[in-house]
């Protein structure tokens, strides 16, 4: 229901709020609310009902003559400025249509598990090459170091190949919508309202998934640190450290696996609301994103350095402690992605649906 009010606000706000205009807005709102209630009574979901109501709205130009706002609605005859928003300087692209937005959202929803699986496989792919040579050296596997490396490389290449194949199959389905993902369209208030309601509807599971994922990412290095500190004297100490590294990868991958299937609606909303006329807000977004990631970086890297030094000195493990850097870098990439997601959530909170 809030989406309907927001939609009408966005349609009417550009014009002088005369009594006649406010009356029209109130009556159209009453009509839309009645229509919404009857769609809900017919068994539509909230999202479907909002979509149908907005589709049946028509267009404001039709009401313009009875409201006396026709001059404002036809930019060609109107004096420049007035109530009209300043014309965007960027080349105008055709507006996104509701059907196009529906198909784009369907494609995103359909491909979300494949996309997630591909990214999880990429993160897991180094596990073999990290662990097998050490397992072989410790005598846990009856193969030579070289065979371990070889199998590890095969494992990496196979996982990467499956991941690439999955990405290619998803990109085939999302390819028709590159104009939407690259912002080569003008925003359309109907689509914007619909996309925002879609994102709002899927926001709760997404936030829950984000919380789980961030918890996993923060906990990811604990087994590694524990094995390094506690099992350093054991004959299989090196092997346990490597198992710790594999666990870091596994936990990071699990976090991504939990989070990514829930982000599609948010992605759809972000892409559909940022048309060619909204370059400013994109710049703001990247600035915000930089800020939260830089805050994380400010304590992350010193902490990692402290862990590295502690491990190396206490465990006298200068030969193996270097692994903390590649692992730390991968983990930081994941945290930065999480930071971006948090930031987009905060942005959504700052601009709530009235």
């Amino acid at each position, binding site marked *: 229901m809030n989406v309907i009010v927001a939609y009408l606000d966005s349609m009417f706000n550009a014009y002088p709020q005369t009594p006649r205009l406010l009356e*029209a807005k109130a*009556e*159209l709102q*009453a*009509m*839309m609310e*009645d*229509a919404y209630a*009857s769609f809900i009574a017919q068994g539509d979901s909230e999202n479907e009902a909002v979509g149908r109501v907005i589709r*049946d*709205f*028509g*267009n*404001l130009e*039709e*009401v313009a*003559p*009875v409201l006396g706002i026709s001059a404002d609605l036809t930019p060609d005859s109107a004096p420049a400025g007035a109530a009209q928003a300043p014309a965007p300087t960027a080349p105008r692209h055709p507006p996104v249509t509701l059907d196009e937005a529906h198909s784009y959202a369907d494609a995103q929803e359909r491909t979300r598990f494949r996309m997630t699986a591909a990214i999880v496989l990429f993160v897991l792919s180094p596990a073999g090459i990290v662990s097998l040579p050490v397992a072989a050296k410790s005598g846990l596997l009856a193969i030579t170091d070289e065979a371990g490396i070889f199998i590890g490389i095969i494992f990496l290449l196979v996982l990467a190949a499956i991941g690439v194949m999955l990405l290619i199959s998803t990109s085939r389905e999302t390819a028709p919508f590159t104009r939407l993902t690259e912002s080569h369209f003008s925003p359309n208030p109907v689509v914007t309202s619909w996309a925002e309601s879609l994102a709002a509807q899927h926001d709760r599971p997404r936030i829950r998934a984000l919380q789980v994922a961030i918890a996993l990412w923060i906990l990811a290095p604990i087994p590694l640190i524990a094995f390094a500190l506690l099992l350093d004297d054991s004959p299989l100490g090196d092997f346990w450290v490597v198992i710790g590294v594999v666990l870091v990868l596994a936990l990071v991958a699990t976090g991504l696996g939990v989070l990514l299937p829930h982000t599609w609606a948010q992605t759809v909303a972000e892409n559909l609301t940022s048309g060619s006329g909204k370059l400013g807000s994109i710049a703001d977004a990247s600035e915000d994103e930089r800020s939260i990631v830089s805050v994380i970086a400010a304590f992350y890297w010193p902490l990692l350095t402290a862990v590295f030094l502690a491990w190396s000195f206490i465990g006298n493990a200068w030969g193996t402690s270097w692994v903390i850097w590649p692992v730390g870098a991968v983990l930081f990439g994941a945290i930065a992605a999480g930071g971006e997601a948090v930031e987009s959530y905060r942005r959504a909170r700052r601009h709530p649906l009235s």
Partner: protein
Amino acid sequence: MISADAIRGYVDVLVLSLLRTGPSYAYELAQRITAISGDDYAIKQTTLYSAVKRLESSELVTSYAGVSPSGKPRTYYRISESGLAHFDLKVDEWRSTKTVVDRFINEAIEGATP
């Protein structure tokens, strides 16, 4: 499905015909138009609203504030005397329009068949 352009001149007649049976409000009018038209025509809310306001400004309908059964304030519309007269006029106009257009169409079809 009839296009909005094709029916544009007759939305007022649809509204007047519904109001002849008694006062009504915008959403109910839209509902009844859509129900009677079946799948042939779905009226947009802005189309209906502008038709009603146009009729009101030419004093063919009058409006009064009412309250819905659930207690929501609602604007009701009632057809006026001149509205009834205008409806009859438009019905005659439609009948003769239809006859003339049919005459052309029938002639074209008969002319095409040997």
